[in-house]
């Protein structure tokens, strides 16, 4: 279990390095898949199984799929992968930075993550789905505001990408 948690954290950080080093969107999306999957495993390791599954479904299965389709529209003939020099230098710098920071802050394992898991194994109501229940009950009108914000974001995106040549983003 210890090994699985360490492996998940390592893959999370490496996946984020793969995204942040700025390759072509295809490869960056691949890094995001790795990072999201590893992040979900980290969450599971700390007791947030519901949150982890929801993250997988919505983030990877929803948003990343849409992003992949949009990235396919902006196809490049020679996409930069992580082994082309311009991207590889960023990868090296980030990994070196990570090692430096890791050496500075290496203190040990912090057991006990009260964000997801207040009473460890002894509670019926876990932090993650308990929070969802609260969002729908006491959360009340703030949930309505969140729904409005999502609708607003839809209008914003549609307005920004309106039409073909009349849109702000694409001249195609």
């Amino acid at each position: 279990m210890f090994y699985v948690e360490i492996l998940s954290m390592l893959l999370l950080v490496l996946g984020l390095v793969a995204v942040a080093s700025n390759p072509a969107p295809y490869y960056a999306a691949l890094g995001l898949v790795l990072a999201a999957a590893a992040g979900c495993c980290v969450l599971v390791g700390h007791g947030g199984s519901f949150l982890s599954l929801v993250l997988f479904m919505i983030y990877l299965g929803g948003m990343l799929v849409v992003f992949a389709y949009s990235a396919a529209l902006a196809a490049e003939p020679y996409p930069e992968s992580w082994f082309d020099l311009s991207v590889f230098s960023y990868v090296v710098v980030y990994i070196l930075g990570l090692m430096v920071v890791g050496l500075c802050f290496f203190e040990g394992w912090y057991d006990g993550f009260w964000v997801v898991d207040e009473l460890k194994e002894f509670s019926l109501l876990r932090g993650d789905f308990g929070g969802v229940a609260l969002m729908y009950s006491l959360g009340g009108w703030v949930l309505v505001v969140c729904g409005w914000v999502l609708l607003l974001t839809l209008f914003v995106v549609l307005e920004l990408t309106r039409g073909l040549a009349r849109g702000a983003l694409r001249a195609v």
Partner: protein
Amino acid sequence: MNPYVLTTLILSLGLGTTLTFASSHWLLAWMGLEINTMAIIPLMAQQHHPRATEATTKYFLTQATAAAMILFASTMNAWTMGDWNINQISHPLATTTVTLALALKIGLAPMHFWLPEVLQGLNLTTGLVLSTWQKLAPFALILQISQNTNPALLTTLGVMSALVGGWGGLNQTQLRKLLAYSSIAHLGWMIIILQFMPALTLLNLTIYITMTSTMFLSLKIMASTKINSLALAWPKTPTLTTLIMLSLLSLGGLPPLTGFMPKWLILQELAKQDLPITATIMAMSALLSLFFYLRLCYTTTLTTFPNTNNTTSPWRLKSTQITLPLTITIILTLMLLPVTPAITTMF
């Protein structure tokens, strides 16, 4: 733009500011700020030319960074001190981070670099909304955290903004960039007095909003965005040309116009707090801003532009634009100084 979409966006602008005003929890305040950012993005890009798109992108990136920093700071404070309350933010790292984030949101130096470029890419109406309405929500938060922030940081932000606003505006011929630097300088004055008397910050913000609205609305009626075109615009409405001159002098902070009121009260409070050097530096930096306001007065009203003899002056036609807001703000910009005691009781 589709009128339904336009209504949705404008009402969402109102919703965002209202949410931030009404919240005591950092997350709800952050939501209000993000709603404001989202709602104004299509308004900024609605002309769909590359300059507007560039301005929109720059605005989005800076505001998103600032909002993320606010989220980090409030989470840090909740993690270490256990409190999500806006005015109970107490961990020094959290207060510094959130102050810098809010400074980035409104455009205080040294986080001001986005403001002139963004304002230049917009039309005058959207620029007006950006300079006035979008400052309200961050200032609501700034006023609430004022007692917990590092005084040295606030003083540095204030003095640097006043100086950068003055010096940066000296080299501008585009009016929107000039108004951006003027905005930076005024924000500096607002922040410098925040730690001593937040009521004066609010008073300065209100009067600044009035004066900037006057300038943007006047420029809209004159249909000019450069000093060159403003200099030739006097035949359109000579009355408005005179009033523009007086509004510019009010922006510069000259008595007996309204703009003198905040500067006077702030300098008085700084002197009472035993900070004569800070007060002197702020007053000197106001001279820099006054120089470019005076340059605008010269070219607009006080001198005739050296154009050739056979240029035609514009016909003096009745404007089809709504002039009521400009009427109200011009009167407020020029005539409020005698009622200073009444204004100070309102804040």
